[in-house]
């Protein structure tokens, strides 16, 4: 088991450097002066140009630039935005909110999704199964912003069940609607994966054996069928997180949740490329870490892989 952890961590290192390097390259390998590009359509004053050039260490060779940049990010030295606010301070303020939102979304998604998938799988072909499949299909085909607007309009404005936008301090009750939207993004896959997994597991010999040795349905379903079916769902959590990151950006923007996603959303809206690059780099790093964590969780769920390369 230890070796599995070590191996996984070692595998994470090239991914960590590789992905941050690629983001960096996308920015600084563009033709022309990257800093000028960052200003978009604006005509910047020379001091502003110089400031950005210094921040990104443009006087250094390319590779050195990368490591200096990476160092800056990791040390939390992220500089200031156009408006002069400290990026550090912004992050410190907004990250907890986003975490709360993401947590709520994942909990809803798993609770509803796994349950629906389990029932669908056990009663394959039944009414619940068909309806669920159709409903989840419709939900995944709505891009995140469409889903967000629809939810906001129907439940926030028309029906008035929730506040259309999140108030100050982002209380949990206000986060509920955006969390449901976020949960909906990937819920369809969770349902399907669970369903397929449940169906496949149910046909396994060990399930038949479990009944054969005298266990009741009430024991076989959670302990043997569901437990084994959770393995692919867990793997999916990693991709899920990627979707959550993007979804959070849009959702927080639309619902005005004071989180990191909203910062990114606003930065994109005003074309603040340096901040976009900083936030994206951080998000990518977080994603790599989450991936590693999920792989380790997978090792807990499925003991077989601890011993195989």
């Amino acid at each position, binding site marked *: 088991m230890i*070796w*599995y952890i070590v*191996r996984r961590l070692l595998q994470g290192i090239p991914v960590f450097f590789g992905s941050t390097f690629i983001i960096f390259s996308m920015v600084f390998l563009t033709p022309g002066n990257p800093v000028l590009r960052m200003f978009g359509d604006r005509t910047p004053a020379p001091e502003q140009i110089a400031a950005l050039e210094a921040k990104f260490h443009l006087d250094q060779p390319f590779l050195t630039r990368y490591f200096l940049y990476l160092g800056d990010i990791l040390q939390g030295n992220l500089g200031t935005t156009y408006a002069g606010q400290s990026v550090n301070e912004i992050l410190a303020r907004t990250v907890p909110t986003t975490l709360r939102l993401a947590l709520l979304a994942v909990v809803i998604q798993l609770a509803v999704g796994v349950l629906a998938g389990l029932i669908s799988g056990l009663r394959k072909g039944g009414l619940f199964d068909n309806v669920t499949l159709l409903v989840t299909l419709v939900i995944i085909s709505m891009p995140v912003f469409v889903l967000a607007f629809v939810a906001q309009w129907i439940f926030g404005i028309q029906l008035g069940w929730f506040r259309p936008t999140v108030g100050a301090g982002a209380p949990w009750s206000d986060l509920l609607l955006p969390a449901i939207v976020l949960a909906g993004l990937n819920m369809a896959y969770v349902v399907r994966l669970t369903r397929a997994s449940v169906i496949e597991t*149910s*046909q*396994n*010999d*060990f399930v*038949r*054996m*479990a*009944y*054969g*040795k*005298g*266990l*009741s*349905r009430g*024991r076989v379903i959670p*302990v*043997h069928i569901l*437990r*084994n079916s959770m*393995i692919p769902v867990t793997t999916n959590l990693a991709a899920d997180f990627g979707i959550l990151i993007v979804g959070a950006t849009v959702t927080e923007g639309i619902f005005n949740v004071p989180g990191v996603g909203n910062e990114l959303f606003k930065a994109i809206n005003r074309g603040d490329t340096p901040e976009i690059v900083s936030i994206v780099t951080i998000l990518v790093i977080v994603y790599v870490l989450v991936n590693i964590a999920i792989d380790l969780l997978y090792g807990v*769920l*499925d*003991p*077989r892989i*601890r*011993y*195989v*390369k």
Partner: protein
Amino acid sequence: MTALEPLLSVEDLQVAFKTQDGFVPAVRGVSFDVYPGETIAIVGESGSGKSTTAHAIINLLPGSGRITGGKVLFEGRDLSKLSRHEMEGVRGKEIGLVPQDPMNSLNPVHRIGFQVEETIRANGLASSKREVRKRAVEVLKEAGLADADQRLRQFPHEFSGGMRQRVLIGIGLSSHPKLLIADEPTSALDVTVQKKILDHLESLTAERGTAVIFITHDLGLAAERAENLVVMHRGKIVESGPAREILQDPRHPYTQRLVAAAPSLASKRIQSAVTSGASLESAEVEGADASFDLVSVAERTADTAVADAPPVIEFREATKVFKIRTGGPRSIPFTAVDKVSFQVPRGSTMALVGESGSGKSTAAKLLLRLEDLTSGEILVEGKNVAELGKQ
């Protein structure tokens, strides 16, 4: 121990499967009895309905299967009419099951101990944690596993096939059921392991007076281990009766073909033919054991081949070592073929015999250069295989 009533009485059982083309009958009117303490074997080829019959007894048919007629009377109760809850009470406690495939019949994500203990608890054998633990250890010990305590903490994939089957047998017998259904319990295992396991099973069931239903496709094995046989073909019983009688005097043409084709009976015939000089009778051949010297037979046969012709194929101390990664930084060397030497004279046929894992397939691959030698030589027509081109 004379019982007048059968323990299990199957009367005109009919089982069908629901498919896209409608209901397909798999078992078409099967009737037989099992008395307490006796061992019967249901023999048939795949598709004959033997497994289906056995699973129908405890209502463990796959989703599309249904009992469409007949009765399954166990101690007077018709099992086919029981509710799900009642059936759960019968399974495990009154009727045990030893499944066919040990590789897939244990849940890979739970420890062995977990799976044994849940059986004990479900069948009401013990309730306190310590009691359950104690019983689990006993079960494994009775199944013939050493270090039962340690074994409980391991996962199924850490066990060999034979060990897993022992666990399953242990689980099947853990609540001392009156009847045990053993579905081809050893067909997935190697021959040498098979015998040990079956012997062990026999001693356990004899000791407790458990009735056993053996499902098998091997008539020889059936005859060896059961008192009575039931021969099934295409969903019906074609012949049934005492095992000895059926072997010596098969009356139904299908049974006759089975007797002629049974692999274990065939090998016994070979054994008896070779050692006929020692006046062994075919019926007593079952005493011959693994120490039988196949190599000497091969050598004798080889002597009669063209003695002077140069060997077409020659292995000289051929060795092949694989490096197996254990998941850590080191890898364990695994010697698949260890200094193997033999010759194959021109025009003769040589059989490489061995169990799985003995290295015979690897040896063949070495000859065809689908794998490379670690050391030693292989010569084809005098030329070293390593020097020949890919052709």
